[in-house]
């Protein structure tokens, strides 16, 4: 097991810069998830760590050694692919032991490692089957088994759950987490699914357009996003953004969201935003769960009237959509709050959990 370090790593294909100077330190035993929209460079980064892609510039270190020119087989890594990439002509056991057999491990050692991994992944009964006879979830277990038996320094996962249906994905997610708790191998996991990222990671790396937007624990990213991209990408339904401006009203700081809608900021927020230039173009970011039906009055919670466009009952909650100054806004109310399509409803906004962003730079203030 080992730490992984990326130093100013760049990947250029002809004219296109897929990865633009990434710095990342992954600690020993850590589970790091690279997340971002397609084309953000996350898979390329993973493939560079694996050695499947050359590095245009920068350094990649595994266990302290620079591996830029080390071929994949000598990097002591194991990778799990989205489409499983099992060898179709080999049985489950042969698939799992292929790497060990190439390295001429003793038979007894191979057998015990395969048995152990199969037991851990609950595929002992499938050991003599061919991949064709397995379901998607079972195939992905075998692919993980193939990685585990090698006992590598680093596990690399490239969107391993994307080919599975929603229910199985949740199940396998838990499985992956359990495996990591047992083997504690340093893991780099790539996904475009922010829920997967949040649930699995010790730390999440949000990438966009070949750069790292923010690195942090799932909670940090959710509650303290650094940029508009991260704020909008993490969380579902996504955070609402509305144009706004700051106003000084009778010695207090107010935030005006619409001509007829202005709220006084709670003291903590007012202190934080006091020095923001008043002429600055700003955005207010509110997560749907901070737009609810009015509950017990608290400082920082303000109410306002709205007319609902659409409601989406989800069972445990109801999502309500309304329009504010031409922007569609989403709120989450309890199912008993009486939200109806097309009907007016009084909503409460929790300004203690608001975010203020610079519209031009997208930076969270």
């Amino acid at each position: 097991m080992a730490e992984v370090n990326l130093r100013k790593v760049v990947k250029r294909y002809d004219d296109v810069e897929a990865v633009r100077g990434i710095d990342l330190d992954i600690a020993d035993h850590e589970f790091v998830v690279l997340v971002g929209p397609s084309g953000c460079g996350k898979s390329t980064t993973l493939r560079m760590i694996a050695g499947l892609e050359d590095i245009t510039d920068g350094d990649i270190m595994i266990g302290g050694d620079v591996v830029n020119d080390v071929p994949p087989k000598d990097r002591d890594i194991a990778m799990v692919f989205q489409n499983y990439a099992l060898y179709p002509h080999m049985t489950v056991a042969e698939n799992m032991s292929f790497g060990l057999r190439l390295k001429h491990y003793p038979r007894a050692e191979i057998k015990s490692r395969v048995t152990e991994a199969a037991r851990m992944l609950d595929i002992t009964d499938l050991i003599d089957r061919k991949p064709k006879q397995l379901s998607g979830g079972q195939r992905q277990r075998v692919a993980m088994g193939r990685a585990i038996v090698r006992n590598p320094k680093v596990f690399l996962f490239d969107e391993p759950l994307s080919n599975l249906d929603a229910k199985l994905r949740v199940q396998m997610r838990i499985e992956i987490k359990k495996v990591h708790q047992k083997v504690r191998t340093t893991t780099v996991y790539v996904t475009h699914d922010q829920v997967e990222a949040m649930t699995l990671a010790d730390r999440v790396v949000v990438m966009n357009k070949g750069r790292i937007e923010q690195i942090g624990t799932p909670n940090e990213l959710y509650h303290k996003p650094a940029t508009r991209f991260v704020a909008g990408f993490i969380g579902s339904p996504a955070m609402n953004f509305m144009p706004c401006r700051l106003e000084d009203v009778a010695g207090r700081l107010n935030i005006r969201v619409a001509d007829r809608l202005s709220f006084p900021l709670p003291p903590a927020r007012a202190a934080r935003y006091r020095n923001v230039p008043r002429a600055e173009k700003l955005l207010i970011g509110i997560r749907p769960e901070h737009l609810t039906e009015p509950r017990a009055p608290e400082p920082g919670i303000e109410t306002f009237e709205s007319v609902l466009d659409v409601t989406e009952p989800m069972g445990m909650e109801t999502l309500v959509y309304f329009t504010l100054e031409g922007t569609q806004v989403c709120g989450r109310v309890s199912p008993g709050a009486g939200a109806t399509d097309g009907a007016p409803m009084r909503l409460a906004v929790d300004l203690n959990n608001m975010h203020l962003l610079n519209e031009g730079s997208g930076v969270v203030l």
Partner: protein
Amino acid sequence: MSTLAIDKSGPRRKVKYGSMSRDRTWALRWSYFFLALFAIFALVPPIYMIITSLKSSAEISAATNPWWVFHPTLSNYIELLTSNQFLRFFWNSAMVSVVVVTITMLISVPAAFALSRMRFWGSATLATGVFLTYLIPDSLLFLPLFKMFARLSEWTGISLINHWYVLLLLYPTLTVPFATWIMIGYFASIPKELDEAAIIDGASWFQTLTRIFIPVALPGLIAATIFAFTVSWAQFLYPLVFTTSTDQLVMPVGIITSLIKGDVFNWGQIMTGALLGAAPPLIIYAFLMDYYIAGLTAGATKG
């Protein structure tokens, strides 16, 4: 009210729709009709050959019903199978075909692997080039090739012309490009992640080829092998041009040159020789048919 009454009288359809199963039945009948027609067209010549091969020369030239054997005899078979000359042709053919198939597969499998997987500068152009060489007919190539070997003999004293082993150099010009092309198609259908997984598992390029690609693309490999064998077994023009001595001839040319003497055609033995010559490919097809069909339907590799 009146319209209601009409509606109650039930649906009246002018167009009659046939049932699905009836349509299917007719489709099947037509398929069988054309299949039968094609089978007759393809099978009549070999049947005629079998009939003729069982006749004596006297009966063949007699004005009796050509579709019936009145005095069946195996003399044609016995004569051919005990003739050293015919056995020599057969041996030459077998030797040439087996070696050519081996050479072809040894060249085209690694070539196809390199062209489809090791992306290097010009690999795509090269792959197309390989196929284009297959499009040049042998009737265009035999003269320059003959000239080439004649010149080689002049310059170096190594005379290959009129030896059966010259065919070992000639046939691959036909078999290698096509076999390579087939294998490129097969290897291309293997998902990229499979070789990446193998490389990460620690396999070299060569191990990836022998332990992953060849087993996975086995149907394609067998299709290419059968193709190479058929081409070398049946090739007529090159041996006709490049070999003349009786002991150097392969079967297709041997039968023609040894059994047609001037204007005397020994039909019984010609037919027998042709039938015996057709036997090896037939046996190979019979054994590998399942693989061959699986091979032609391709792409069955995605696990």
